[in-house]
């Protein structure tokens, strides 16, 4: 006894066996021939009764789910007098089934027979629209072509998100894109870089081989792409045009990146990259991104090339050109001379041979001579062609030679560096001394003789600096006596303090007797200060001070003690005799 499940299986098989020609009526008749409802329901309910652990609620739900099926059955049964609308609906159902067989042979039967749709029993449902859903790759292409520029950024971000782990640069670009999405500012260079990436990424999208690469696109994107209503022929034409443009762009970029020499090979490379799969496209994408960055930087202006690269270009480029030109000239001259020499030699040989032949082989036939002449002419032509080919190849090879440093420019560079080093050495040696002298002059005009003395001590001085130094020296010498007096008074050494004043008077007369270097006024001022202290504090006039300074050491010391202590001073006889 067949159950409902078995019957459904058989029905599915019948549908999957490409029974597209069968009408819905026949299918429904088969359904009507199915076991009775009681048996079917009994079978299900019997199954659930045999499993007491399931509750009544579940059974109710199942019955509710089965109700529409019953309704459709009744509907189909009632449809014997089917209207034209119903016929169309049946045909559309057949189409659905046929497409389901063709596309998803392993599809779930429950999915195909959506009982909820059947329950409506109306032809107004959207089933006829389903076959018009384009294939995913086509939809992708359509989106790329039909979507406005705003959607491109989203695609780029998705792509870069997928490649975050592959490259740090792309991660940076992704971060910048995110910043741009969040309306944060970005550097112009980086924006230019991103623009380059966008263009290249669109190139990658257009590549049909790379479609599987972009399976990361969400279904919503695909739906959006399907929603654009451009017709397929127009799209294909546009696709071709855009592909052609993009290929041109690729070639141009690669020619910019790899230089002019590789122009010819780039076309082949582009073809190879198109033929190869996603890895190559990724590499191309990255290369193009770099190229785009370079272009953007070049467009932006100053930050194009580093100093050393510019220097190397300066040193090498023109040399290369010169070499190539020289090489071409040499090749041309050399080959011309060589060819002329060889031609003259051959002419001579010919003449000699002809002469010999004319003398020795006068009896020879004309035909043999003609044959020989032809062979010779052929043999001559071949080397000439070879020479021409060599001539053409030689300059090219020389152009391709590696860059060589120009000796002239190298010498210029060395001379430039030497002058810089020499100037640095000169400045390092003379600049500190110059600075010291300048500071000494400034200090002198400010009256800071101590600084002048320190800065100019033990240095080679010109006349003006020597005057400044000596003037500071003599002023400081007298000033130091006054300071010594103050020090000794502070240290509670009154005898030494008076001694300092006495030495100051002596020093003044010594200094004023010689060249004062224009410091007479300053010396006089200091001398007046010393004399004032002697007069006011100790009652000693300048004349008395000069007289005391003339004493011998012992008398001098006794006199100073008597001045400080206020005792009477008597000149010792012995000491006066010694002093005399």
């Amino acid at each position, binding site marked *: 006894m067949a159950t409902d499940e078995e019957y459904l299986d058989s029905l599915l098989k019948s549908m999957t066996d490409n029974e597209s020609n069968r009408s819905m009526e026949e299918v429904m008749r088969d359904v009507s021939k199915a076991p009775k409802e009681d048996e079917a329901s009994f079978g299900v309910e019997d199954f659930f009764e045999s499993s007491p652990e399931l509750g009544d609620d579940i059974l109710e739900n199942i019955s509710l789910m089965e109700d529409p099926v019953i309704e459709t059955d009744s509907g189909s049964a009632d449809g014997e007098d089917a209207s034209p609308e119903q016929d169309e609906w049946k045909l559309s159902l057949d189409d659905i089934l046929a497409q389901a067989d063709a596309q998803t042979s392993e599809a779930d039967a429950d999915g195909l027979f959506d009982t909820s749709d059947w329950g409506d029993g109306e032809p107004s449902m959207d089933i006829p629209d389903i076959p018009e859903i384009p294939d995913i790759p086509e939809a992708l292409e359509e989106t790329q072509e039909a979507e406005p520029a705003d959607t491109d950024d989203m695609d780029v971000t998705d792509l870069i998100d997928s490649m975050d782990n592959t490259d740090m640069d792309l991660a940076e670009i992704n971060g910048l894109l995110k910043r741009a999405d969040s309306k944060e500012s970005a550097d112009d260079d980086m924006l230019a870089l991103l623009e380059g990436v966008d263009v290249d990424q669109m190139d990658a999208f257009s590549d049909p081989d790379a479609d599987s690469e972009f399976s990361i696109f969400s279904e919503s994107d695909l739906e959006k792409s399907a929603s654009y209503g451009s017709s397929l022929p127009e799209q294909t034409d546009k696709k071709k045009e855009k592909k052609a443009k993009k290929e041109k762009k690729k070639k141009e970029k690669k020619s910019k990146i790899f230089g002019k020499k590789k122009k010819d090979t780039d076309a082949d490379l582009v073809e190879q990259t198109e033929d190869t799969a996603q890895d190559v496209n990724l590499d191309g994408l990255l290369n193009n991104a770099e190229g785009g960055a370079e272009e953007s930087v070049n467009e932006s202006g100053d930050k194009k090339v580093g100093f050393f690269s510019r220097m190397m270009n300066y040193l090498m480029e023109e040399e290369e050109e010169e070499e190539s030109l020289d090489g071409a000239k040499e090749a041309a001259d050399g080959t011309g001379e060589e060819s002329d020499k060889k031609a003259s030699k051959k002419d001579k040989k010919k003449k000699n041979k002809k002469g010999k032949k004319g003398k020795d082989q006068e009896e020879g036939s004309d035909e043999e001579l003609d044959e020989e002449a032809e062979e010779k002419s052929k043999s001559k032509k071949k080397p000439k062609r070879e020479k021409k080919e060599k001539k053409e190849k030689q300059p090219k090879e020389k152009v391709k030679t590696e860059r060589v440093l120009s000796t002239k420019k190298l010498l210029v560079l060395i001379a430039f560096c030497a002058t810089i080093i020499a100037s640095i050495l000169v400045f390092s040696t003379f600049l500190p001394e110059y600075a010291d002298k300048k500071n000494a002059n400034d200090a002198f005009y400010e009256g800071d003789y101590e600084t002048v003395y320190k800065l100019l001590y*033990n240095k080679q001085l010109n006349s003006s600096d020597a005057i400044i130094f000596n003037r500071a020296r003599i002023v400081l010498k007298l000033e*130091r006596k006054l300071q010594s007096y103050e*020090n000794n008074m*502070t240290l509670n050494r009154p005898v030494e303090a008076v001694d300092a004043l006495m030495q100051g008077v002596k020093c003044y007369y010594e200094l004023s007797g010689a060249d004062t270097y224009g410091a007479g006024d300053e010396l006089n001022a200091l001398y007046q200060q010393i004399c004032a202290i002697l007069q006011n504090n100790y009652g000693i006039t300048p004349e008395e001070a000069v007289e005391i300074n003339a004493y011998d050491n012992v008398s001098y010391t006794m006199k100073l003690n008597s001045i400080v202590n206020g005792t009477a001073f008597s000149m010792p006889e012995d000491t006066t005799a010694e002093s005399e």
Partner: protein
Amino acid sequence: MTAIIDYDAGNIKSVEKALLKLGEKAVITRDREVILGADRVILPGVGAFGDAMHKLRAYGLEEVICEVVHRGIPFLGICLGLQLMFERSEESKGVKGLGLLKGEIVRIPDKDGIKVPHIGWNSLKFPNKGRLFQGIPEDSYVYFVHSYYLQAEDADIVTASTEYGTLIHASVEKGNVFACQFHPEKSSQVGLTILKNFIGIEPFYKTAEE
């Protein structure tokens, strides 16, 4: 013969004159062999600690001085020469001295009424009687010019001191090494006596040979 080390420092000529006045043959030199062949060596100096050390090293005299001391040749440092014989100085932080003796050079403290540098005559005290000061009474005056002064680690090596706001170790003596912060060549008769005493000291290596 007494060698006066020439390392572009000042106050060399006055030392030479003083020695000549005492009847001693003096040679101003930086030649290694001449210095090592001398009976006595004097390291004079006026200037900054760091610059002087750089000069000594630049001329390769640091090793020569150490060898002089190692050989037992009498060695006298004057003023900056004394400071260079110690380990370090506040004047040039981070610059190592010759390190022949232990101690450091510090700046004379600023006090009211006391001028720095210390310039002029000042009297000496003799905590330990040294060979340089034989025949010189205490409180004798010698001539000072300096802003930094010695604080010797070992007080036993201090043979003369003075007061200038603080206690200044004015002279030290250890073995064949002698040093004075004051200027004996500018200190009149007392200074000449000090130099005469130094000339009279025989090298150690000669006594060892004997």
